[in-house]
């Protein structure tokens, strides 16, 4: 690209939420530019996966589904937010069908909506984004936001291939940068380093639900394939063949406990007859690791491990002010896993269906709100004298520190005051001692900002986890195993060097009514 560009709405990210935001903003006829760290079509956690999508054809069905979901949220989600998400996603999926995305027909010959083959879906969305007139810059990671007169009005970054710096001035910015997996090797997550959280926090935004960053997925041997669906039909055993008894817990909890006592193996021996063929053609990437390793997982056992899914299948992110995508910072909007999904899914994972619906809904809201902001406030911030926010850069060893503190089961999956305090001290040291003072350029600048974003995300997660002196959903405190009604509310956190915690006094449901 030219070194400096001007646009109306700048979208940062390349997954589903970014694509919906770009299309919705561009519908109003304004100039929209999308920059992504990777490639719009393959970027993000969704693209390689295959996703169930939260869907019900009728309003009554959606209301019932939202109520069921919220009942499982440990008191932190609310029905109006969940229902608005479902309604908006419903519109988006109908739109996708009308555009010609090839949804299959089920055995009764009816169009089957609630599953997206995400490689196909994101390739299709790229075409729609282009058709909407959006300018796309792949491999152009944003590193820092630009602010003029207190309004976020662009970003600066680096082009990965040329290693040249770029700057784009805009009248509004949407962060759709995804979540953070703390350096874990789960498919689709190499770019998910929490960049948007850091950029937003530097601009003064607040995060919430960060303590709910302890979702882990089961993977076969040392693959990155964290697709949980097929484990519905798995049995788990120890090295000597002793079955691991299902005590009605979540599978991840079962495996986490078992792994403390040695290697754990699984076998898909309960797959119903006839379903093997459907799994092979419907979810080929589930069986791919086995095919390539020469294992028949329906008959032979194989080792399993847990991989951290951070805030991707976790919950935390930038706190939004209502269902508009607004972050509370003028000119800055957020969508997808960059935003907190606490109001939608509470203390449990929104992995798969709800997050997929959320990407569509929150993307559409953020794109529309950013366009409305441009219409209301005007474009003069595009050219006002501005300053680049941020500047925190950590040297790459910080990434190893984050992995050591955030990936182990006995630190993040299971937590205690002692381990959280130790980890926060180590992460705090990394934050101060690994600050990079050398001016960095090109890909080195990207790496140092990723290290800073991951470290900041880790500190927000464990700081919130230390404050939540109870267990709730995926937040498992071994030193406070019970769920305490006094904590049935959200924890908000802000700040970079010094962090500020604010606990909502009122339970989430009452707060909404006010």
């Amino acid at each position, binding site marked *: 690209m030219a070194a400096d560009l001007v646009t109306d709405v700048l979208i940062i990210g390349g997954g589903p939420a970014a694509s919906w935001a770009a299309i919705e903003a561009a519908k109003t006829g304004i100039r929209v530019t999308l920059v992504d760290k990777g490639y719009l079509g393959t970027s993000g956690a969704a693209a390689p996966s295959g996703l169930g999508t939260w869907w019900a054809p009728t309003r009554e069905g959606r209301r019932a589904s939202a109520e069921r979901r919220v009942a499982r949220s440990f008191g932190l989600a609310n029905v109006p937010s969940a229902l608005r998400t479902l309604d908006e996603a419903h519109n988006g999926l109908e739109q996708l069908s009308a555009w010609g995305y090839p949804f*299959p027909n089920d055995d009764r010959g009816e169009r089957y909506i609630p*599953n997206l083959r995400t490689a196909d879906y994101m390739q299709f969305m790229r075409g729609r984004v282009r058709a909407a007139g959006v300018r796309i810059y792949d491999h152009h990671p944003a590193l820092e936001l630009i602010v003029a007169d207190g309004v976020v009005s662009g970003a600066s970054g680096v082009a990965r291939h040329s290693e040249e710096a770029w700057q784009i001035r805009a009248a509004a910015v949407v962060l759709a940068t995804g979540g953070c997996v703390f350096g874990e090797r789960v498919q689709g*997550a190499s770019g998910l380093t929490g960049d948007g959280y850091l950029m937003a926090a530097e601009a003064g935004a607040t995060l919430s639900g960060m303590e709910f960053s302890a979702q882990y997925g089961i993977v076969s041997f040392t693959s990155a394939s964290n697709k949980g669906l097929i484990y519905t039909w798995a049995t788990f055993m120890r090295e000597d063949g002793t079955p691991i008894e299902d005590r009605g817990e979540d599978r991840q909890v079962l495996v986490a406990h078992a792994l403390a006592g040695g290697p754990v193996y699984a076998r898909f021996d309960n797959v119903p007859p006839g379903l093997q063929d459907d799994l092979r053609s419907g979810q080929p990437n589930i069986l791919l690791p086995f095919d390539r390793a020469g294992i028949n997982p329906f008959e032979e056992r194989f080792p399993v491990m847990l991989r951290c899914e951070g805030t991707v299948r976790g919950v935390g992110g930038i706190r939004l002010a209502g269902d508009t995508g607004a972050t509370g910072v003028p000119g800055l909007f957020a969508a997808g896993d960059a935003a907190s999904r606490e109001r939608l899914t509470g203390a449990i994972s929104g992995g798969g269906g709800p997050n997929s619906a959320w990407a569509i809904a929150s993307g559409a809201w953020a794109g529309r709100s950013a366009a409305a902001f441009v219409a209301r406030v005007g474009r003069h911030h595009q050219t006002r004298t501005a300053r680049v926010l941020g500047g925190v850069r950590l040297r790459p060893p910080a990434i190893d520190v984050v992995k050591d503190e955030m990936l182990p089961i006995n630190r993040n999956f299971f937590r205690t005051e002692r381990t959280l305090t130790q980890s926060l001290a180590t992460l705090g040291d990394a934050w101060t001692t690994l600050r990079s003072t050398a001016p960095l350029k090109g890909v080195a600048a990207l790496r140092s900002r990723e290290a800073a974003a991951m470290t900041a995300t880790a500190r927000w997660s464990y700081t919130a986890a230390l404050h939540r002196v109870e267990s709730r959903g995926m937040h498992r405190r071994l030193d406070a195993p019970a769920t305490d009604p006094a904590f049935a509310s959200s924890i908000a956190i802000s700040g970079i060097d010094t962090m500020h915690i604010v606990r909502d006094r009122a339970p989430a449901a009452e707060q909404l009514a006010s």
Partner: protein
Amino acid sequence: MIEIVSAARCIGCNICVKVCPADVFDPVTDGAPVIARQDDCQTCFLCELYCPVDALFVDAQAEHSIAVREGDVEAAGLFGSYARAMGWNRGKPGGAERDPTFRIRAAMQS
């Protein structure tokens, strides 16, 4: 992670350089791209789908590179096996309209 760019199969279109979200490939003038940043590979297999001539091989091991011989991959018929299972052809999408995942989800709920 990504293990092989087959020079015998590659036509030098550089689509893999363009679509890899983790930017692991570098283009080579008049040649097959090289795997320049293997450790950045996120083992998503998407480069295999987008390759129009099935010249790429991604192993499922995500932690470390393992020794994989091109002749063995060829003999086992694994070049392009993911694309064929999906129904993608010559780097273009296909097969979503035949996706039987609705049966899997029905079985999960039963």
